[in-house]
C-alpha cells in the first residue's frame, strides 16, 4: 500500500482562502460598528463587534499560520485493490475507508485558486456522504478519477 500525499501547494491555497474570508469579514464588522455609532444603538453592541473582531483575528492565526501545515502533514490517501483510505484531521485524526463497491460517483472540481496552481479537487460520493481529497495535480486527479471509475465498474454495486 502506497501512501500518497497532497500537492504541497495546497498549503498556500488554504492560506489564501483563509485570508479571503478574513478580509471579507472586516468590512462587515466595520459596517456594523458604524451602524452602532450612527444610529445610536445600545452600547453593548460594541462588545459584540469587538468579540467578532477578536474571533476574526483568531481565525487568521489559526487558519493561516497553524492549521494548514498540520492538515497537510496528517493528510494522506491510499488506493488499494478494493477500497480507498483517506486520513485527515487537525486535532482529531480520522482515517476513513470507502470500499469502491459503495462509491456512487466521482467528482472533480476546480475553483479559480486551484486552477491557477493547476490543481484539482476530487470527491467521492457514497450513499452515505461525500469524502474529499482537496488537491491533486490535474493529471493525477484525472488518473485517480479514471482509476476509481474503472474499479467501480469491476466491482458492480451489489446492494439493492
Amino acid at each position, binding site marked *: 500500500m502506497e501512501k500518497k500525499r497532497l500537492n504541497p501547494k495546497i498549503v498556500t491555497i488554504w492560506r489564501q482562502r483563509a485570508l479571503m474570508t478574513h478580509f471579507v469579514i472586516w468590512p462587515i464588522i466595520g459596517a456594523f460598528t458604524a451602524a452602532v455609532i450612527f444610529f445610536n444603538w445600545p452600547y453593548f453592541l460594541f462588545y459584540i463587534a469587538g468579540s467578532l473582531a477578536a474571533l476574526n483575528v483568531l481565525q487568521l492565526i489559526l487558519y493561516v499560520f497553524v492549521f494548514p501545515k498540520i492538515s497537510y502533514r496528517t493528510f494522506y490517501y491510499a488506493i488499494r485493490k478494493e477500497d480507498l483510505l483517506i486520513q485527515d*484531521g487537525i486535532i482529531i485524526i480520522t*482515517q476513513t475507508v470507502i470500499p469502491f463497491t*459503495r462509491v456512487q460517483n466521482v467528482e472533480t472540481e476546480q475553483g479559480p485558486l486551484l486552477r491557477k496552481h493547476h490543481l484539482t479537487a476530487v470527491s467521492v460520493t457514497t450513499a*452515505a*456522504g461525500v469524502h474529499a481529497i482537496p488537491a491533486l495535480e490535474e493529471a493525477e486527479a484525472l488518473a485517480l478519477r479514471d482509476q476509481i471509475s474503472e474499479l467501480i465498474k469491476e466491482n458492480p454495486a451489489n446492494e439493492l
Partner: protein
Amino acid sequence: MNSKGKHLHFFAIFNEALSTLWSILVPLMFGFIWGVRHLDTIFGYIIIIPLIILIFNFFKWLRFTYEFVDDQFHIRSGVLVRNDRYIRIQRIQSVQIKTNLLMRPLGIVQLKFDTADPAVKGDMILSALKRTEAEKIKAQISRGKTEQAEQVHSEEIVSVSPNIDESPLHVYTLSGKRLVAASLLYSKIGVMLAAVFGLWSQADDLIPDRIRGRSLSYIEHVSLVGIIIIIGFAILLLWLFSLITTLFKWGGFKLSIYHDEWRIHRGILETRDETYKIDRVQAIRIKEQWLQQLFGWCTLYAECSGSIDSEKGDGGSVLIFPLIRKTDLPIFLENVMPKFSGPITINQLPIRGALYRMIIPIAFWFSLSSILAWWLPWGKYTFLALPLILVYCWIRLRSEGYALNEDRLIFVNRLFAKTTTITRKNNIQSFAKKNSRTQRRLNLASCSATVRASSAETYTMRQLDERDAHKLFHWFRN
C-alpha cells in the same frame, strides 16, 4: 458506447425559468387580483383565498392521472408544467397504505410508495383512493415484482401463476396486555418533564396579564408541597396523554413476515399498512428504555435505505415491533431477519476510556456549581448532584460496548435508553477511525460506521481500546 457531450436544447433555459416563475407567481397573482376587489372587507380575503386554493387543487386533481404501462407505473401531473413520471415497478421499494379519521368513514386511503431515492424526490403519493383500488394497485405492484423475479430466475416456468396471496411465514401480533405494557413502558418521562418545564417558563407569555397576576400571586402563596403536587399532577396528565396516543398508535399491531418482505399493520383510529422489502434493511436497532430494561423488554427498529415517512416520528426508522421480551429476542430476530441474527456477546470498553469521557460532564458541572455557589446563596448545594452525575456517567459508560462476529458489527450505546445497533459489513458505506492527541496517548480510539438509512446514519463507538479499533478497522478493510 461513446458520444460527444451534448447540450440540452437552448429552450431549456426559458423553460426552467418559466416553470419556477409560474409556480411562485400564479397563486400570488390570483390571490392579489381577486383580493384587491374585496380589499375593504376582510370577508373578501376569507372567501377568496381558500377558493383559489380549492380551484388550484381541482386543476391539480384534474391533471393527475396514473396508469400501469407494461412493467412501469406512469404518473402524469402538473397544472402548468406537465410532469410525466415513469417508475419501474421493480424499483418500488415499499408500499404504504394509510387512513385517518377524516378519510376512514368514506372508505378512502392514501397510498404511498417509494424508491431508493432520497425522500423528497422518491416518494409517490396517491393522496386519495378507494380502499379496493389501493389494494388492487398494491397487488399489481407485488405481482409485477414476482413476475420480474421469475423471468430472471428461470425462463422456462411461464405457466406458473404467481400467487400473490402466499401465506406469511410468521405472524406476530401485539396482544392487548402487551399493548398496554408497551405503552406504559414507552412513555418518555424525560420528554414530558421537559414539556412541563417548557410550559412553565412559557406561562408568562401564554397567560393574559390579568389572570397571570392572579395565578402568580396564588402560586406565591402556596407552599412548596403545593407546587410539587401541581407539577406532579401536570406530569401525570401528560403521561396519561402520551399513554393514550401510544395506545392508539400501536393498537392492533401486526407484523407478518413473507419470504422477501414485511407487512406491518398498525393503528386503531388511523390505520397504516406498510410493506417493506427485507433486502432494504441496513441496520437493526434494539432500544431499551430505563423502565423497559428494568423489566427485561425491548423495542425493535429497522433502518431502511430509501425514503422516510417524516410523520413517523421515529427518526426515519421503521418500527418492527413495539415490545418483546429480551429472552425471546434471538428467536424473533432469527425469524424476522436471519441475516442480522446471531449471538450477541458484548466486549466492554476499557475503564480508562470511561474515566476520560467522564472528565467533560464533571468539569462542566463543577464549574457551573462553582459559579452558582459564588453568586447564589443556595448555589453550593448543587455540588450535591456531583456524585449522582458521577455514578450515572459510570453506569452509562460501562454499559456501552461492541461486538464483532463474522460480518456483523454490533454497537451498544447509551445516552438514556440503551441502544444496540446491529449492522453488517455489506451495509456499511464507509468506516472511520478517529483519535485525538490525548486519545493516542491513552491508547484509545473512536470508530464510526456510516450506513445508508433514510439519511446517512453514523453509528459511533467512542473510546475503544486502540487495538480493538484497529481490529474493527481491518475487519472492514478485508
